[in-house]
């Protein structure tokens, strides 16, 4: 007898999850530029408090979506970005370190990779061209 309410409760709870959703490569499309998502090194998600997930293939699409207020600021639960070094590992944008470089080629030309920490980013950069930034500065720079 108790199973029905339990089930309903479970459905209710699961529909409210605000966790990032792993990309389904080759099937998912970028919400902003409509391109199919295929490159596992780049991409991000904006998740609303109601649990809707917007997927993006490149940081620049996500930033432009946020700037155009595709969803209102106070409705956003999380903004996450793909870890350049690990497939389907999402990092909170405010905690990630970004490397912007002509050495990189991201799907929509932001040429920006995200890393779990500053040392990780420095290690990947290894003296190559480009600069390391945090989310705030990077977001300001994007038009």
């Amino acid at each position, binding site marked *: 007898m108790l199973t029905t309410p339990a089930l309903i409760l479970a459905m209710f709870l699961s529909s409210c999850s605000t966790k990032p959703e792993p990309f389904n490569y*080759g099937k998912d499309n970028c919400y902003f530029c409509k391109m199919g998502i295929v490159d596992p090194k780049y991409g991000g998600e904006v998740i609303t408090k109601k649990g809707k997930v917007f997927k993006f293939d490149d940081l620049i699409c996500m930033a432009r979506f946020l700037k155009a207020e595709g969803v209102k600021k106070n409705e956003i639960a999380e903004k996450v970005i793909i870890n350049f070094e690990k497939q389907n590992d999402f990092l909170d944008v405010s905690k990630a370190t970004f490397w912007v470089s002509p050495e990189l080629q991201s799907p929509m030309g932001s040429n920006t990779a995200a890393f779990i920490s500053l040392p990780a980013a420095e290690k990947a950069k290894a003296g190559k061209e480009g600069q390391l930034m945090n989310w705030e500065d990077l977001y300001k720079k994007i038009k």
Partner: protein
Amino acid sequence: MRLGLTILFVIICTACFSNTILVGNNQPIHSLKKAFELAKDKDSIILQAGIYKEGALILTKSITLLGQDNPVLDGENKYEILLISGKNITVKGIQFRNSGYSSMNDFASIKLVDATNVILENNTITGAYFAIHISNTTYATVRNNSITGSPRSEQLTGNAIHLWKSGYALIENNHVQGHRDGIYFEFVTFSTIRNNLSEKNIRYGLHFMFSNDDNYINNIFRDNGAGAAVMYSHKVLMEDNHFEKNWGSSSYGILLKDITDSHIEHNFFITNSVGIHMEGSNRIEIEKNTFRENGWAIKVQASCEDNNFHHNNFTGNSFDVGTNGSISLNNFYNNYWDKYEGYDINKDGIGDVPYHPVSMYSMIVEENPNALMLLRSFTVQLLDKAEKAIPSLTPENLVDNKPLMKSQRL
């Protein structure tokens, strides 16, 4: 007469000074690397049948490299097989297989960097990450190549023919399949893509970004994730192409995003989820195309302006035109619509009452895709008929005032 002789003399002299180097297992030289070292500009190298595992080769001299009886260059899944940089280089009739993969660099079977006047012809490429990768290059010709990808896993495959920051390229008669994008253009200008067959690619048959003044003519895009994505470009000519079987929840024949001043003529859109999906695109002539058995023939988002749709045939599509706005700033005239139910009293071949290609139900589906389930129901047909009599939801000025009574032969 004397001039003729002089020219002949010059030709003979140059012919004398250019050597041919034979490379093969039974020849004194059996390494291509060695041959590249020995060769001078304008020499030819003939690579005889056999399997060559030479790691990463670099070619910078103006030579012609010819394969005899399909020699194989094997990258052993580790190396970028052939890197070309220079001018006046030809590579012909060679099989490239198993080039390496790198997550950081775009490893390719044949890579062109800073080159000009290069011809890649009659080659076979299998098991590559990127097959042909061209950057900072002008006047590259890629002709009659057969490229087959064998994706280790879906996202670990690159593009078959990839061009970046190049100009005046000619891509023709190639058969590409099983890669991420069949043909990929980014910052490529004044180039032509013609007579290619691009099929079974994971993402797009053709992918175009920031590439102006290009043509693609007489290609077949079949059974790809989506047919062609043409984005952020202007002055693109798309003619005589076939877009077939691009089927899936968000699949289409062509995706046009931010395209201006372009021409889409005499193409065939057959059995696609959406024939043409347009967003932010202006001043495009869309004429003499055939739209047959698509989910939507055309989806025009409200962000599109001044596009002309005329002399197209629309037959057997579930929806002819879909849109998400209530006003339309595009022109439709002289198209043939099989759903048209008007009459032609003066017998001039043009229907006397206008045709509204946007059905009410397509507006509802645009808002709520799940409503598609009820498409063939009686109520929906009733609603559509009522809407035709008294339009309320559908954009009133999205209308063909001069619909054709008979389909045209295209």
